[in-house]
């Protein structure tokens, strides 16, 4: 159902673009960050592990793609890439790179982080992400440090030119829909349900015989992989990667998108991503100090949701639905 909903929104946007300029580009950005937010939601909403370092996999994959595309001196990777490009598969090659890199980092970091709970998990994921950021910032030989990496253009997919923003939008939409479908199947599978069980009560799950550590670890890696896919999309969309992509700010934004839209759903992070990105576009036109406003929005939203005990925007809807059901009784 949701799938068709997304399909419709995705389809309408190009039409909307004719009336409201740039809406296609904004939607493109929303889709990229929606994948990121949804991936975090798998970890945070469904498994109950809030991570402050999710942008690490996002950033690592984006950098990986950018590096493969630009560092011609790294002969082997570039040769492989060129071969792939010549066969129309350039972009798929990048996607594979992104997934592999994200998987590697998530697997490694997950080993270190999963043992912790709650606050410590938060801090550990934060620190690991900061280390990755530090690498991006300082290891100029590889990452160009503060300057970031400019990506010359998007490789084509089977001959379709993706440099055209219009075409690329549909590519992003396609990837988004595929990711969404996979994530949907994942969270509704028995494995996904067991993750929710772990969130509710890990002790109980352990007593039932589940290997909770392994479950959490797999969830961590899966979330990391999708985060990496988002990073791949981001590099191609933005054509530029830089250290802020990996910074605490990006991780916090992802966290906020999930919290704002409604954790433990897949639609919630999408809503959260949309709101944040749209606000970012419009507010920064009028006001210089966007981070300040963003901070105030964080605080406001959290205070409101705690005062009225709702879990994000979708939480408001479910509360209304629940209370009307109660009234019917």
């Amino acid at each position, binding site marked *: 159902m949701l799938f068709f909903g997304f399909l419709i929104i995705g389809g309408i946007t190009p039409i909307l673009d004719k009336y409201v300029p740039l809406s296609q580009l904004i939607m493109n950005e929303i889709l990229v960050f929606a994948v990121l937010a949804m991936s975090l939601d798998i970890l945070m909403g469904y498994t109950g592990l809030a991570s402050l370092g999710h942008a690490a996999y996002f950033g690592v994959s984006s950098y990986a793609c950018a590096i493969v595309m630009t560092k011609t001196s790294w002969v082997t990777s570039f040769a492989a890439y060129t071969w792939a490009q010549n066969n129309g598969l350039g972009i798929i090659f990048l996607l594979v790179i992104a997934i592999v890199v994200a998987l590697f980092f998530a697997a490694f970091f997950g080993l270190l982080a999963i043992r912790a709970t709650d606050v410590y998990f938060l*801090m550990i994921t934060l620190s690991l992400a900061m*280390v990755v950021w530090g*690498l991006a910032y*300082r*290891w100029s030989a590889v990452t160009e440090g503060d300057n970031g990496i400019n990506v010359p253009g998007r490789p084509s997919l089977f001959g379709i030119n993706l440099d055209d923003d219009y075409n690329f939008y549909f590519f992003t939409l396609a990837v988004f829909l595929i990711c969404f479908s996979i994530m949907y199947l994942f969270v509704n599978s028995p494995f996904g349900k067991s993750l929710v069980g772990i969130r509710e009560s890990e002790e109980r799950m352990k007593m039932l015989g589940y290997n909770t550590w392994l479950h959490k670890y797999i969830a961590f890696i899966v979330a990391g992989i999708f985060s990496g896919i988002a990073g791949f999309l981001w590099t191609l969309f933005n054509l530029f990667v830089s250290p802020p992509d990996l910074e*605490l700010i990006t991780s916090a934004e992802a966290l906020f998108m999930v919290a704002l839209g409604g954790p433990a759903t897949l639609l919630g992070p999408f809503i959260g991503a949309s709101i944040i990105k749209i606000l970012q576009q419009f507010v920064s036109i009028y006001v210089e100090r966007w981070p*300040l406003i963003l901070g105030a929005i964080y605080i406001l939203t959290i*205070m409101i949701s705690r005062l009225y005990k709702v879990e994000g925007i979708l939480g408001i809807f479910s509360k209304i639905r629940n209370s009307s059901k109660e009234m019917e009784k």
Partner: protein
Amino acid sequence: MFSAEKMIILTYSSFAYAALLFLLASGLSLIFGVMRIVNLAHAAFFLLSGYIALEFYNIIYGTVSLIPRLVQIVSWAVVYFLWKFMSQTISKGKSALILILIYIAAEIISLTLWGFPIYEKLFFVKIPVKAVDKLNIWMLIGALIFTITVISLAGFFVERVFLRTLGQDTIAQVLVTIGFAFILQDGSLYMWGGDNYFFNLPTMLSGSFTIQGLTFETFRLFLFIVALVVALALYFCIERTRLGAIMRATVDDPEMARGIGINTNIVSMSIFAIGTSLAAIGGVVGASFLGVYPGLDFEILPYAFAVVIIGGMGSLGGALVGSILVGLIENFATAFFPELNYFALFAPMAIILAVKPTGLFGKG
């Protein structure tokens, strides 16, 4: 490359850096240990105190007037007292919301009618500060007192109004403190501009002394002494005084503490204020060492977290050991392979995380 002299000098500057880190991390650790709050705005308070010190010096020098700042303080005070007054009848949350809505409406009016946002004149006033040439030790002490007062008031405000309501909800705490970090950081950028400010050290403390032919900077010794004094003061306060006992009681069992008659609210507020004051001390003293510039907080936050992760949350001894370790690693790594110095922090952190996730002396 590995000369003994270089080692000694590196160790010396490591301890100075460790001192700074200790001032920053101890507050973080204290706030967490006592209140179980991960204060992500901690480094932002650090940064803010540097800027406040800068403004203090400017005011003393007369390059800047106190009046716009007074207007700002009065505006915030008015808002706070309005809120308190309203919360006597309406609930606190609702009165806060109403005030915010009024503010947004006023902003919209102001922007459309007069073309400038209210916050520029009332709440976040821009002050053109200049770099300061000569400092003396009394100005430094004055700045310390002034900044600590301001920052602890800010700390009281944040804890009372926002963090108190959130209780133990980790994600909410994280997002709210990050929100404050953004506001403080961007507010600082706005109020004082994006230039980097570096101070000249107070004349009494600048310069160096030589032992056995090796030169050591005096200021680093000063940093170390300050941190040592603070560490000892904290230790005695927490372990040996009645006040400390009250604090520890509130941590261990808030319900029982309330039962005995301890006002846990005031204790929490005070701890948060003390924690941020520690960051303030670090900020003022460290400003002479590191300078003040936007982005300083995000640069130093990972180190503060590394200290707390390695040393353990909630443990003063852990913060001490952690900051020394991190100081040493940072200095030596930067000396030998500067491009990977963040990475050099990673190894010990990873080891600690793999073996004991709560840190060396962590209180779990």
